[in-house]
Each structure stands twice: as structure tokens, then as C-alpha cells.
């Protein structure tokens, strides 16, 4: 018996990285998972892996920055599985650079995925969850929701905005039984990060950095998702012990 038997989740950006790890962790506990992303090939791999270990999953491609595909994503989830209990807003864009060199395109690209995408998915989920009488939204933030790296203005600004949206969603959802919390991961061993030898892409390169595993990060989201409906994990910050974060610098 799984802790999430009978539940339905939508996970964005689930073709790779933390999103894929969370989708797999939720499915392991009996949750039906609708995985979203732009690339069907990588989504198909996530679905395949979940099905091979006995779980239920469906891939729906779609750009979270656009209204129509987001509507379609949630319509598909409800059409196939009748409900949405959990939304994990994980899709994110990482980009940085010296402030004076940032193009508007880069800025808008990051804000589009990291902020507008979270809003659009949250709005659709909220509509469904309100009717159902409850649900849970988990936003993937970042250490950058609290403190910036050097040369990370778009990413840092977007993750600060997500924290504002997390709190607004939690407040507005309260009377409808909709909870909202934010998981802030530090350096995590996602495919992109491993390929870059542990180097960051969201700010100035500081060489290889310590990483923690996707599986350990996914267990944090699982704890948040498995709380009883009357409990909310508002925020959680998980990072490598050796990551340079807490001190001044």
C-alpha cells in the first residue's frame, strides 16, 4: 500500500532532474502522475520508468508559459483521472550573466517559465482543487529565493517572486483546503549539472561544487506530499552540507 494511493499529481518539467525524481517518488507511493514538459522523448522515458516499476503515469507535452497548453494539460489530467490532488511546479529555466549584458529576451525567458508558468499552472490547479474541496501545490524554489549567486539576477529575481506566489497561494487557498509550500533545493545532481562537472549555470562559474542526489531531494517533496490534508509544509530548504551558502560573501 502506498501513502498516495488514489491520488493524482501533475508534475511540470518532469522529463529530467528534480521533476523526474519527484514524479518517480510520487508514483512509487501509488500516485498517478501526469508528467509535463516540452520534450516528448524525455517525458516518454519518465513514463516508461514509472510504468516499469508498476506505477501509473501519463505524458502531456506543453509549454507552461502559454495559456492554451496549460489549460490542455489540466483538462487532460481531469479527463483521464477525474481529479488533481497535487501540483508540483518544477519546470524552471536557469540563466544568468553580468547584469549589463543581460538581454530582455533572456530576462523574459526566465520570468516566463519560472514565474508566469507557475502562475498559469497554479491557476488551473486552483480551479480544480477549489471544486474538489482541497489539494496541494508544491513549488520548487531555490536557495536563490533567499540569497543570490553573483551574476544571477534573472534567476534570483524569479525565485524570489515564486516565494511571494507560494505565500499568496497558501493564503488564498486556506479557506478552500488548498495548501501551498515551497521546496528550496541547493546544488542537486541533475543531468545538466553532472554534465557540467558540478558547475552552476545560474550565476558566475565557481568551479565544481558539491551536489546532493535527486533521490534525496525527491524524498523532501514526498514528505510534503504525504502530509495529511490539514497540514502544510510551507517551506523546506535542502542543500549539500559543504555548499558555500550560509556565510557572508
Amino acid at each position, binding site marked *: 500500500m502506498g501513502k498516495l494511493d488514489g491520488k493524482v499529481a501533475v508534475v511540470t518539467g518532469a522529463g529530467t532532474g528534480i521533476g523526474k525524481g519527484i514524479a518517480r517518488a510520487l508514483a512509487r507511493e501509488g500516485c498517478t502522475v501526469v508528467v509535463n514538459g516540452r520534450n516528448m522523448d524525455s517525458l516518454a522515458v519518465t513514463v516508461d520508468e514509472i510504468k516499469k516499476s508498476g506505477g501509473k503515469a501519463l505524458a502531456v507535452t506543453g509549454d507552461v508559459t502559454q495559456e492554451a497548453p496549460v489549460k490542455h494539460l489540466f483538462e487532460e489530467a481531469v479527463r483521464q483521472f477525474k481529479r488533481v490532488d497535487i501540483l508540483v511546479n518544477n519546470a524552471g529555466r536557469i540563466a544568468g550573466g553580468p547584469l549589463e549584458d543581460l538581454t530582455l529576451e533572456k530576462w523574459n525567458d526566465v520570468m516566463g517559465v519560472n514565474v508566469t508558468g507557475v502562475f498559469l499552472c497554479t491557476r488551473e490547479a486552483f480551479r480544480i482543487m477549489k471544486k474538489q474541496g482541497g489539494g496541494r501545490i508544491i513549488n520548487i524554489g531555490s536557495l536563490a529565493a533567499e540569497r543570490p549567486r553573483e551574476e544571477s539576477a534573472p534567476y534570483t529575481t524569479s525565485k524570489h517572486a515564486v516565494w511571494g506566489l507560494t*505565500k499568496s497561494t*497558501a*493564503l488564498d487557498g*486556506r479557506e478552500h*483546503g488548498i*495548501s501551498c509550500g515551497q521546496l528550496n533545493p541547493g546544488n542537486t545532481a541533475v543531468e545538466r549539472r553532472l554534465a557540467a562537472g558540478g558547475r552552476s549555470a545560474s550565476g558566475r562559474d565557481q568551479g565544481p561544487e*558539491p551536489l*546532493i*542526489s535527486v533521490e*534525496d531531494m525527491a*524524498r*523532501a517533496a514526498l*514528505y510534503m506530499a*504525504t*502530509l*495529511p*490534508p*490539514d*497540514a*502544510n*509544509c*510551507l*517551506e*523546506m*530548504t*535542502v*542543500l*549539500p*552540507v*559543504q555548499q558555500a*551558502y*550560509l*556565510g557572508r560573501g
Partner: protein
Amino acid sequence: MAQLLAGKSAIVTGGGSGIGKAIAIAFAAEGCRVAVAGRTASRLEDTAAAIRKAGGTCLSIVADVTQERPVADLFKKVKAEFGRLDLLVNNAGITEGGPIDEMSFETWRRVVATNLDGVFLCSREAFRIMKAQKGGRIINIGSISTAVPRPNASPYSATKNAVWGLTKSISIDGRPFGISCGQLNPGNVQVERFEPAFASNEVLLRPADIAQGAVYMASLPADADVLSMTVMPLKQKFVGRG
């Protein structure tokens, strides 16, 4: 299923009731040997009995966390008994409050002694053991008062904010030695002790749900840390302005 804390040992202060008791029981259920410390022997024995009944290992040690000597003795005993100390949960805390103009210095001192001095004294002893054994984890139980106070709770809010400073200091000072430190901030939880500050209609969480958060923190590999976690009732008034 494999136990998440097999082979580890832990001290949980304030382990005779409430969140501390739930954490001690949850750790033991995951294979951790647990020492519960507190002021009231009978309550500690209740926790120990519950753990032993379920097949776990538990020591109950009476100790006042506000005093140097008993804290040193506590850690010495646990080290002697378990051989090492992987986890310290600084949970002991008190919640006295009242209007600031009516508060006695004794009340203030009592709260500071347990909620802040106690965390320092226990962390210092744990740090010494963990530094020598090259690693360990300290989990401080804070409060959502760390971010936003209740009215008439000045000593409580002040000490819980101070604990957050201590959490970050231990974390940064522990980094070279593989000692991690994180803080779990619970909202309203259904505990046995009288909570005069709580309005009677406030919603409450179960200690066991908070304890699962602590289990996640404790079960991470040595190179990963949950720096902070906030768990509260969905309906608790906290996020908005007020």
C-alpha cells in the same frame, strides 16, 4: 523495508512529551538507538517504555538542559552507552509569556535558559563528540514564531529567533567537520502541556506528522542538510498580515 536510521544513535531533549516524544518514537521505529532527556523521570520512562515495547532501544536520562554539569553528564553517559552520537535533537522548550510590562525578569530568564542556553549547552557537547568522530547532525526545534510572533510572547519569540541564529552558526562552524545543523519550525501542534497563548479554536497538527519531518532530516546522507523546514496546520493564521 530497510530502516532509515539503522545503526545510528540520538539524543532527544524534552523527550518525555509532545514533539520530543514523537520524534524519539519515530527515530526508534527507524532503527535508531535513542536517549531521551528531560526533567521528569516518569514521563521519560513512558517514552522509553513505548520504544522498548516496539522493540527499540531507549535510555531515559533526567537532566536539566539549562545547567552545564547535567548536560555534560548526559552526553558522557550516552557516549559511554552507545559509543557514538550521530544525532542531537534540541527539542526542550518552554512557552511562558505575557504582556511585556507585566513580565518578571525571572520569567524572561527561565525561557532564555531553556530555549536558548539549553540549545547552546547541548550543541556544544554534541559538537565536541561529533568533531572527534568526524561528523554528525544537530536538529533544532524552532517555531513559526521565528518568522512571525504571537502577541504577548516576547521571550518565546526572542529565543526562537535566537535559535535560528544559532542554527546557522552551528551549520557554518560545523561545515569543515561534516557536522550539519538544521531547524524544524512547527506551527500549532497538539501537545500535552497547557498552552495559555492558544485560542481555544485554533487548529492543531499531530506530533507524529512533525516527527516524520524530523525523520526525513535525520535520514539524509551525511553530505546533505535540511537547513530549515516549516510545518503547520493548513488553516493556521500565519501567512497573511495580522
